[in-house]
C-alpha cells in the first residue's frame, strides 16, 4: 500500500527551480532513499512534504489524505515525523523532556505525563540515547543530537519519518549501528522511512527504492542496483 504519494510537485525560489515535476510513491513499511548532489532539492522536498514549504504546484497525500494547505503541526499529527539536517534540539530541556513534548503533541497524543514519558523513553532506547536521558540537549555531541532528532520524530508516534542526513558525521561503526537501528524500527514498528543520505554505501544498503534528483529534476528511480547502473546517474556523478 502506498503511504506517501507525491504527484508533480514543483517549487521555485525566485528564478531558481528547486523542484520540477517530482513524482514518486512510498510503500508502507519500506525504506525509500533520496539521492542527489548538494542543491539538488532534497531538503526542499522534505520541507514541502512536512508542510514547512508551500509548493508552487503538484499534490501530496499521506495515508490517503491530501496534505495541501495543512500546517506542519497538523501534518505531524497525521503521523508524519521529520528530522532536520541542521539539528534543532530544545537545548535547555533535558533529552527526556525533548521527547516527552513530542509524545504529548504528536500523533501519539500521550497527554498524560506517564504515557508520554514511557513513549519518550522507548524512543530514546530505540536510538541508543537512554543513558543520556537526564542531560541537557545542548550538551550532547553533534552525532547524539542527530540521534535525538530521530528520537523526537519517533516519539511523535509517526508511521512515516523523513530522515535528513542523520548519518553525516558519524563514524563507520556508528553508521553500521544506525543502519541496524533503522532496519529494526521498520521490522518492529512497521515504520516507513524516507531518507536523505550522503553516505552512499549506507543508502544503498538501506533503501528498497531510490530516487535521484539533479537540480530539482528526477533523473532516475528504482531499486538501488538499478539506480547505480543508470546512465543518467553515472553522468551526473562521474561526468
Amino acid at each position, binding site marked *: 500500500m502506498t503511504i506517501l504519494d507525491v504527484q508533480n510537485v514543483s517549487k521555485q525560489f525566485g528564478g531558481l527551480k528547486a523542484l520540477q515535476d517530482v513524482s514518486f510513491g512510498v510503500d508502507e513499511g519500506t525504506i525509500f532513499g533520496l539521492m542527489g548532489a548538494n542543491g539538488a532539492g532534497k531538503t526542499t522536498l522534505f520541507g514541502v512534504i*512536512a508542510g*514547512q514549504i508551500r509548493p508552487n504546484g503538484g499534490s501530496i497525500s499521506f495515508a490517503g489524505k491530501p496534505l495541501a494547505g495543512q500546517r506542519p*503541526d497538523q501534518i505531524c499529527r497525521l503521523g508524519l515525523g521529520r528530522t532536520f539536517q541542521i539539528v534543532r534540539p530544545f*537545548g*535547555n530541556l533535558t533529552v527526556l523532556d525533548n521527547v*516527552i*513534548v*513530542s509524545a504529548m*503533541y504528536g500523533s501519539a497524543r500521550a497527554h498524560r505525563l506517564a504515557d508520554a514519558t514511557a513513549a519518550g523513553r522507548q524512543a530514546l532506547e530505540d536510538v541508543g540515547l537512554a543513558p543520556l536521558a537526564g542531560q541537557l540537549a545542548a550538551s550532547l555531541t553533534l552525532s547524539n543530537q542527530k540521534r535525538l532528532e530521530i528520537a523526537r520524530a519517533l*516519539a511523535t508516534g509517526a508511521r512515516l519519518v523523513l530522515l535528513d542526513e542523520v548519518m553525516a558525521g558519524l563514524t563507520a561503526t556508528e553508521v553500521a549501528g544506525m543502519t541496524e537501528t533503522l532496519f529494526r524500527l521498520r521490522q518492529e514498528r512497521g515504520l516507513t522511512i524516507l531518507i536523505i543520505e550522503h553516505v552512499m554505501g549506507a543508502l544503498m544498503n538501506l533503501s528498497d527504492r531510490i530516487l535521484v534528483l539533479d537540480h530539482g529534476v528526477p533523473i532516475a528511480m528504482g531499486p538501488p542496483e538499478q539506480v547505480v547502473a543508470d546512465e543518467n546517474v553515472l553522468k551526473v556523478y562521474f561526468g
Partner: protein
Amino acid sequence: MTGKPFQIAAFLAVAGLLALVPLLGSEYWLGVAFIVAMWIALIQSWSLLSATTGYISLGHAVFYGIGAYVLVVSLDWMPVPYALALSGAAAGLLALVVGLPVLRVKGPYFVILTFGFAELVKNLVMLLETRLGQFSRMIFDAPSLEALYYAMLALAVIATALAAWTAQSRFGRGLAAIRENEVAAEAIGVPVTRLKLFAFVASAIIPGIVGGLLVLRTSYFAADQAFDPVVSFTIVTTAIVGGLGRVSGPLLGTLFLVILSELLWARFPQAYMMILGALLIVFILFVPQGLAGLVSKGLKR
C-alpha cells in the same frame, strides 16, 4: 520532585502571612502589601507568556491601562465586581485581537512592537479623553482599601497558581518547546500559533483586573499615568531580577523591588529609573538565573 511539597507549603505560608496584614491595622503597611500583591499578580501574568515562550512583552502596561480605563468608564453603569470583570475581559479581548499579527514577529522585533503598540493605545486613549473633554476622571465611593487588598491578593494567588500549574502541564511543555525552537516545535505537532495566542490572552486578563483595582485604590484616572511605560519596564526588570522560569522568581523579585522602592522612591525619585536600569544590567550579566536561581543554588548547598 522532593522539593515540591516544601514549595507549595512555602507559597501557602507567604499567602497566609499576606492575608493577615489588614489585622495590623496600619494604613501604611496595608498600602505596601497592596503594592506587593499588585506586582506579584502583574509579573506572574507577564511570565505566563514571556518567561515561558521567550516572547518578551515590553508593553504589558497596555493591558493594565485598558483595564483601568474600562473600569473607570463602566463604573457609571454597573457595580464594582462587574466592572472589574469587564476590565479583565477587555484586556483579554485586546490581546486576542492584536495577538495574531504581533506574535508573528520574534525577538527584538516583538519587544519593540509590543512597546510601540502600548504607546499607540495610550495616545489614542489620551486623544479620545481630550475629545470627550475629560482630562482626568475621579471615582467617588470606591470600596475600602481592605476589600481592594483582598481582591488584589486573590489575583496574586491565582496568577501564581496558574504559573505553577503551567510549569508542569502539557501546555507549559508546548510553550517551552516554542521558546527553544519554534520550527522544531511545530514539526513535532505543537500548534504554535494557537498556544502563543492562548498564553498572550491569559497573560493579559489579570493585568486588566489589576489596572481596575489600582484605579479604585487611587480614585483617579489619567491616561498618561494608567498607561505609564514605566510599569512595563518595571515588570520586565523585576521578572529578570527575580529569575525567569521559576515560579518563585516573581515573588523574590517583587520583594526586592518593593524594599528597594520603599527605601529609594520616597527619597530619590529621580534616581529610581537609573537604579532599575543598573540592576537590570548587573543581573543579566552576572546573575542570569536571578534571585530565584541564587536561592535554589544556596538551598542545594
